[in-house]
């Protein structure tokens, strides 16, 4: 897999710091699962975070010693904590996506125009979904009032900003208006996260938007 479109350092840093909404963190973790360059970048950001932690002025409490003794006393008897690693990848879906799917294959729902989706999670801070776009199909032109991250898992798509193949991630900032078109040959399956509703330009998708919940 040759990855040409990576995550910007600021998003990897925010992921390391734990400040990304879960929708974006899912896309970041999925991309890093596929991309050694961004995996190294994450290790470097965590390295820096560790140096910041080391150099923080410590905050001592009178109960520190009691806390330490209590922990030392239960080191051997404590139940074994589970690993934090995600479940194993399934086909084109890296572990973080399998986790968001709950370990089962996607349950696609029709969106119109041959496009299908499954919303994996949504809350007040954003949503993350899988999209299945038939070859050559265009997603209606839209712009963003926030940030949209799109990770290609299979097939490809292109828009005015470039061509995105498997493993590539597109970062669409506020203001970018684009109309992505799936590449020829195979359907484009991607993982997309947004923090605000998209703004569609053509009238019909705008009317459908409440139904599509994009």
């Amino acid at each position, binding site marked *: 897999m040759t990855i040409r479109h990576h995550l910007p350092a600021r998003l990897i840093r925010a992921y390391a710091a734990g400040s990304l909404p*879960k929708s974006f963190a899912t896309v970041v973790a999925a991309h890093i699962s596929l991309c050694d360059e961004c995996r190294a970048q*994450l290790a*470097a950001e965590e390295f820096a975070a560790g*140096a910041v932690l080391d150099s923080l002025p410590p905050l001592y409490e009178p109960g520190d010693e009691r806390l330490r003794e209590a922990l030392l006393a239960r080191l051997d008897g404590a139940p074994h904590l589970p690993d934090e690693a995600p479940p194993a990848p399934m086909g084109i879906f*890296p572990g973080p996506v399998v986790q968001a799917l709950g370990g089962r294959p996607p349950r696609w729902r029709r969106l119109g125009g041959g496009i299908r989706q499954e919303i994996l999670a949504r809350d007040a801070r954003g949503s993350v979904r899988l999209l299945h776009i038939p070859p050559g199909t265009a997603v209606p032109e839209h712009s963003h009032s926030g940030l949209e991250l799109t990770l290609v898992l299979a097939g490809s798509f292109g828009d005015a900003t470039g061509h995105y193949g498997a493993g590539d991630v597109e970062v669409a900032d506020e203001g970018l208006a684009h109309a992505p078109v799936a590449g020829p040959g195979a359907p484009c399956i991607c993982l997309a996260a947004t923090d605000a509703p998209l703004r569609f330009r053509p009238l019909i998708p705008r009317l459908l938007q409440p139904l599509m919940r994009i």
Partner: protein
Amino acid sequence: MPSGDEPHAGLDEQTRWLLAVRDRRDRQAFARLFDFYGPRLRAMLARLGCTGAAVDDVIQDALLRVWQKAGQFDPAQASASAWIFRIARNRYIDIVRRDTRPMPDALAVEPPPEPDPGEVLALQAEGARLRAALAELPKEQRRMVEMAYLGELSHREIAEETGLPLGTVKSRIRLALERLRYHLKEHKPP
């Protein structure tokens, strides 16, 4: 103190303690890790507005995990502080936010290969230089770096790229990145 430090010469104290826990289940070294990181984790949590019983829960849970998972620590891939930071960050999200942070797939190398001592020392040296660069930052810039790494930035501030580490700090992180990138390439499973 871990004795017979010869094989770990040149490593910072925290990394030596963690290796003593990993290799010898050394409880005294673990107590030192607790004494060092407990109050620093509390300082980090205070920045996030986290106080009260939850703080003790995060610290205890994180350090217990350090004890149980020390076998996974590879000093060529992470400093002790980076490794403990990641654990504590996830414990905070789990306990305080009652959520889980999605984690990337692990690399398929288990157990990690015995690291090249040269690589370990090189990463350690970068850590020392990074801490020195942090210490020299003007107060306001240091505050921005802390906000970026300790999870204090709002979504808006992330989008606007506030809190970017500046100057020497940024170049030190880039040098660490080169080391880590090289290590990943060398140890990538076929």
